[in-house]
């Protein structure tokens, strides 16, 4: 066990997830890199390209946003995505919707089975509220997002950070309206794969959170692969 804190594993009373594997071979990918824990990343994906995120060591939250690459004012909308599919959790078949009601990408394979879009990204300030006022110094997803947007030099910044996706993170909501951060449902090697439905800009923070179980208290690297559209 790589995490040092004791964890309690509860029986999981959740509907069995439907898992779907991909037939794509990593050696055919046009891009293949490992993103270390705590790092930001951004890249344009052309329409039709397939993007895979691999949770290399298990239970790593990957905070992710997508924008229309040609007009970034059109961006991922968590609430439009939830309403479009009538479900809070993202998995195979989920269309990641923009605020304009158009799909940015579609999830086409998923060996984890459930991803969050309610939990948002951690920030220095929300860490102060959630954990302690003296946690402000800790590295956080919003800092990674801001640094990545700053480096891009496209004039994008904090205004361009709406509610995001947390791949591999488990934030169950109960019928009574409770919300918690539960132990992850992912495991080493699980992945999620999506097809770009338009040219999109992907923005990722490989979450550095150390204060809650979203990363099993141990942020780890993820692998990012891109395949060209099938001919």
């Amino acid at each position, binding site marked *: 066990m790589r995490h040092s804190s004791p964890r309690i594993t509860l029986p999981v*009373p*959740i*509907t069995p997830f439907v898992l779907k594997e991909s037939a794509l071979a990593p050696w055919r990918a046009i891009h293949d890199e490992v993103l270390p824990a705590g790092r930001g990343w951004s890249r344009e994906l052309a329409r039709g390209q397939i993007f895979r995120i691999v949770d290399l060591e298990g239970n790593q939250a990957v905070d992710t946003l997508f924008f229309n690459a040609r007009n970034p*004012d*059109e961006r991922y*909308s*968590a*609430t*439009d995505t*939830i*309403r479009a599919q*009538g*479900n*809070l*959790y993202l998995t195979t078949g989920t269309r990641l919707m923009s*605020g304009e*009601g158009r799909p940015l990408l579609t999830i086409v394979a998923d060996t984890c089975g*459930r991803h969050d879009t*309610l*939990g*948002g*990204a951690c*920030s*220095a*300030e*929300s860490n*102060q*509220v*959630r954990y*302690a*006022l003296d946690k402000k110094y800790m590295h956080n997803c*919003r800092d990674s997002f801001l640094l990545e947007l700053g480096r891009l030099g496209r004039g994008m910044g*904090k*205004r*361009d*950070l*709406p*509610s995001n996706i947390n791949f591999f993170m488990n934030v*169950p*909501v*109960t*019928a009574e*309206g*409770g*919300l*918690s*951060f539960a132990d992850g449902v992912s495991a080493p090697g699980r992945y999620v794969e999506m097809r770009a439905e338009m040219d999109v800009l992907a923005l990722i923070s490989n979450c550095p959170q150390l204060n809650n179980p979203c990363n099993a208290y141990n942020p780890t690297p993820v692998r990012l692969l891109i395949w060209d559209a099938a001919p």
Partner: protein
Amino acid sequence: MILEETLRGGQAWSRRLARGQILRVTDTAGTACLSALFYNAREPLERYNMADTLKAQYTAFLTAGRVLYSDMGRVLVSLIADSCGWHDTISGCGDAAASEARYGQGGYQELRNDFHRNARDNFLVELGKWGLGKRDLVPNVNFFVRVSADDSGRIAWVPDNSRPGAFVDLRAEMDTLVVLSNTPHPLDPAPAYGPPPVELSIRVAAPIERPGPDDRCRTSRPENARGFALTEAYAAEVEPRRDSAGTP
């Protein structure tokens, strides 16, 4: 009362609420969906953050005793009273396409000022008045609406969540720009377009309504005590000559 105003069905509204003022919104018919967004009136780059609000309070909905967090760890407004019991913030707002799909075209040319307005367009109009726009649209609050989720995550509209006369009191903890849209929720199955009037009133918090040490919203969670501390530190930064109750 600083203001009393009726929002017609379909109407949009925006106004700055000064720290220490209380906005009461009342659902006259018991069927309203009042969609709302909140910004720091001094620096609207700081805005309501659904995720931080839910995470800090371990909840998927809003009611009395809870607060609305900005993305900067501060409390924009507190829900100090609520006779409805459940307000949604996970299901977003309707747009022109959703409205047309459910109610038909409903254009201005045919219906004049009873035309079918929708929350997203209303938000864009009001935000435009403050130099804001699409980039400032984030997941909103839907007062008087309940959308529930089952174990598998499937969401459902819960009927009869509100009742005639139900109200919420929102106390501003910092100078806040409030943007409202009185328009149907996209999951509301009612077949006809008919948002009811919503009453708005603004008053200054009485001494007993101010966020003192025993305030219900401040003490409802240890997270909120820290959120209020950060908010009060910000007030001291931007308005050093006002006292802690917001009185100049």
